[in-house]
């Protein structure tokens, strides 16, 4: 081996090796993170990735998932060209066609359906991730439809809605810079967000106290928590009420703040009365003594901040009320709109609370159509209707099947994943009834196999994109390599398609680069400057809102106060017995019989090497946990006479899968944990399709009655 060969093998960048380092971001998980990556490229091929040193948030590190970006990019099942279906729906028989042919077919079909059934009969849908959503949203508008819908029908929106119902807008924990107390509800940050976990370690070094609420022992409960409340799944709301009871009874709350800024305290106080420590212990399994300890620490903290997750709590059918009950504790302790407590969020570019404005709002709103039929699902979740500018994906299958109140004939989809939907066969069956389905994706998926036209999208390393971060930062990533095969970026596909659809959207028709320029046209920075910088640049326009402003001006609620009793819910919930202005407590189980299904299934609790279904086919990650397995408590394993690696069937009232066994005492006896998104063992089959939170429409993935049986035993 020559010296140069040795250097190339070790992937040392430089002139001698011809290896260049380009700057992109990891788009595998949430836009709340999107860690910076250095991409090592030679001859238009990615050789490896590393975290970008000094990057906002990530600081040069990566998680398990992010470290796999190269293999994620070069997955074997990448879609290579546009495809036209020649077999039956679901069969997976396609012929390759050109982009021009694909666009012509799509434009002809969509415009035809629009002419016959109206623009709202075409639904524009996107799954994960979220980077091109402004383009899709504008496209739906330009087409003349409000039927823009996303995977946010099951992610994060419920948390935002809970905040909106109480405070008029979302707040976030100012964690944990200025606090002395931190409470993480359903928080396993060491696995899900290392950057936040690093912040918590630093917080603890400064003497901060950390309480974690989780039904499992996790790395976070073990290595960060000072106190871990290991409650029964789905009882977070009752636990919050139990804390409220003690805080009110002992005066561990901010009476002055409540008198000045809070609406509905009397009703709240009255409802809290029944959640005595003993009653709370009965419901949650958390000892009265531990409850008292936490209530006092929390109530007497100078500043308390929280972690309120985007999924784990709200993936219960009582999750919205649990979330409200958790937020209510921050209200009564006077920690809302306060440095070190909860600070208001003013989200802009792709959900980033970045502290400056872009033209995103105008980009979407300037094309909003007038006199449209209301979005799919309207009326089903009335609070969603008034708070969320998207159709609700959990009602899509019904409306396609029933055609009421109006028909949906086509879906133009990006990253549509049937495994996200409870009883996923239901959405597939509905999609098969459409006149026309387009599925855009990076890899061939089950949903793609049901489409009439399939379009190949690309990963973050194959495109350039705008990305904003907290603290006033903006990035425009470098395209590291040309897209593989004939793939294009989702936003580019939308811009191309706008020309073929002939919608008169002159900006989109100019192409993706011009739309990006428009989005930052109010800022004193150019795309070139952003792309030339190794790190995101801090905008001159950075002007963050100061906490406390809303206390002075009044909160953006009907009463101008923080509403423990939500007047918004009181008005939209009129005539609905399942919607209550107070975050009242109820059980979160499905309707199945406890006798037949004595165990509790928690579907989707995170593991380090997976994210939904997108990483199951990445061999580096799959090698860390090869077999889809259910986590069983040793006591349950003994009773069922199964050992590590055995096969079991996991069944609920709606379905059954066969999986491997992993024995761990992390959870409580009787609770079983199963990760989602496996094609060969899709746990969403076990989630009943009507098991939805009435406020938000979020499925109760995390609490379903189930049973486990050893394979081969009757």
């Amino acid at each position, binding site marked *: 081996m020559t010296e140069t060969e040795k250097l190339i093998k070790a992937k040392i960048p430089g002139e001698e090796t011809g290896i260049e380092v380009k700057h992109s971001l990891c788009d595998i998980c949430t836009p709340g993170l999107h860690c910076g990556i250095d991409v090592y490229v030679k001859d238009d091929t990615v050789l490896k990735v590393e975290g970008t040193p000094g990057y906002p948030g990530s600081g040069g590190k*990566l*998680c*398990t998932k992010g*470290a796999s970006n190269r293999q994620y990019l070069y997955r074997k099942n990448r879609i290579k060209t546009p495809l036209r279906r020649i077999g039956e729906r679901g069969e997976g028989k396609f012929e390759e066609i050109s982009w021009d042919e694909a666009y012509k077919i799509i434009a002809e079909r969509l415009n035809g359906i629009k002419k016959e059934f109206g623009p709202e009969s075409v639904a524009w849908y996107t799954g994960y991730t979220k980077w091109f959503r402004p383009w899709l949203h504008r496209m739906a508008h330009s087409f003349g439809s409000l039927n823009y819908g996303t995977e946010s029908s099951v992610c994060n929106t419920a948390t935002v809605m809970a905040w909106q119902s109480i405070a008029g807008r979302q707040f976030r924990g100012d964690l944990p810079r200025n606090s002395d107390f931190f409470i993480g509800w359903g928080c396993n940050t060491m696995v899900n967000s290392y950057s936040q976990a690093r912040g918590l370690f630093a917080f603890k070094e400064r003497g901060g106290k950390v309480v974690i609420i989780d039904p499992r022992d996790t*790395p976070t409960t073990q290595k960060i928590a000072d106190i871990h409340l290991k409650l029964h799944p789905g009882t977070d709301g009752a636990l919050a009420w139990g804390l409220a009871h003690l805080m009110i009874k002992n005066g561990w709350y901010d009476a002055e703040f409540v008198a000045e800024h809070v609406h509905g305290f009397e009703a709240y106080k009255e409802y809290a009365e029944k959640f005595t420590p003993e009653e709370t212990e009965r419901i949650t399994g958390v000892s009265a003594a531990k409850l008292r300890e936490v209530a006092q620490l929390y109530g007497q903290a100078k500043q308390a901040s929280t972690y309120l997750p985007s999924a784990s709590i709200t993936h219960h059918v009582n999750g919205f009320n649990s979330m409200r009950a958790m937020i209510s504790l921050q209200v009564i302790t006077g920690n809302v709109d306060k440095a070190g407590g909860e600070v208001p969020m003013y989200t802009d570019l792709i959900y980033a609370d970045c502290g400056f404005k872009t033209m995103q709002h105008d980009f979407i709103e300037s094309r909003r159509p007038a006199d449209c039929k209301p979005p799919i699902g309207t009326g089903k979740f009335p609070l969603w209707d008034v708070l969320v500018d998207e159709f609700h994906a959990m009602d899509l299958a019904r409306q396609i099947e029933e055609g009421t109140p109006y028909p949906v004939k086509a879906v133009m989809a990006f990253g549509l994943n049937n495994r996200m939907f409870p009883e996923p066969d239901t959405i597939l069956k509905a999609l098969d009834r459409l006149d026309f389905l387009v599925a855009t994706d990076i890899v061939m998926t089950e949903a793609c196999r049901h489409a009439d036209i399939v379009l190949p999208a690309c990963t973050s390393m194959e495109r350039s994109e705008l990305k904003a971060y907290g603290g006033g930062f903006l990035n425009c990533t470098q395209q590291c390599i040309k897209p593989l095969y004939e793939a294009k970026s989702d936003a580019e596909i939308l811009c191309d398609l706008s020309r073929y659809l002939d919608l008169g959207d002159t900006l989109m028709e100019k192409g993706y680069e011009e739309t990006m320029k428009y989005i930052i046209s109010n800022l004193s920075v150019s795309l070139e400057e952003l792309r030339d910088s190794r790190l995101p640049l801090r905008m001159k326009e950075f002007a963050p809102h100061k906490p406390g402003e809303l206390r002075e001006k009044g909160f953006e609620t009907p009463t101008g106060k923080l509403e423990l009793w939500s007047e918004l819910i009181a008005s939209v919930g009129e005539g609905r017995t399942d919607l209550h202005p107070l975050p009242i407590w109820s059980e979160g189980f499905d309707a199945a019989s406890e006798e037949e299904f004595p165990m509790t299934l928690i579907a989707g609790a995170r593991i380090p090497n997976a994210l939904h279904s997108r990483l199951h086919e990445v*061999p580096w*990650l799959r*090698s860390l946990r090869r077999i889809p397995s259910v986590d069983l408590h040793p006591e349950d394993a003994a009773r069922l006479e199964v050992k590590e690696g055995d096969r079991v069937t996991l069944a609920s009232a709606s379905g059954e899968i066969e999986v491997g066994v992993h024995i761990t*005492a992390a959870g409580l006896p009787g609770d079983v944990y199963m990760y989602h998104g496996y094609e060969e063992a899709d746990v969403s089959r076990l989630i009943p399709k009507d098991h939805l939170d009435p406020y938000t429409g979020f499925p109760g993935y995390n609490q379903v009655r189930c049973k486990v049986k050893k394979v081969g035993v009757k």
Partner: protein
Amino acid sequence: MKQVMFELDSEKCISCGACAVACMDQNDIDPEVQVPFRHVHTLETVENGNVFYTNISMACMHCTDAPCVQACPKGCLSKDPATGLTVYDNTGCIGCHSCVMACPFGAPTFSAAGKMMKCDGCMTRREHGMEPACVRVCPFDALKLVEVEDASENKWDKVMKRLRQTGSGK
């Protein structure tokens, strides 16, 4: 260069596997055809109803008195005098597996072509001022390559103590 060793802070490690994946990315390992160099494990113990995890990330331990060096009939393995790392040149490797049989940790692995490969502490990267890939990625700085004189024995001691408890079923 001074004598170096890998150090793991088991208090910070969560066995997330980022190190194992970064190692596979650096060394072009396909886990479907070759055993990776680095592995993570979570060992669980239950004491008085409380659960404890011991988290481990392991690759070649770069033993001072490395049995693999003695075992190889072709002399492929050696101790790097400058760093103390166990390094190799597999040009002469005949794929006899003597090294892995001698290794108490089963660290050496074999490529699809049957040639021995293993962790060399990312020698070439280090010569160019870069950390080993596994260390570079670790989100909690739990895994480090440290100079032997700076190493705190106490970190491995903690891991070993927990391992002994796990092993004895306590």
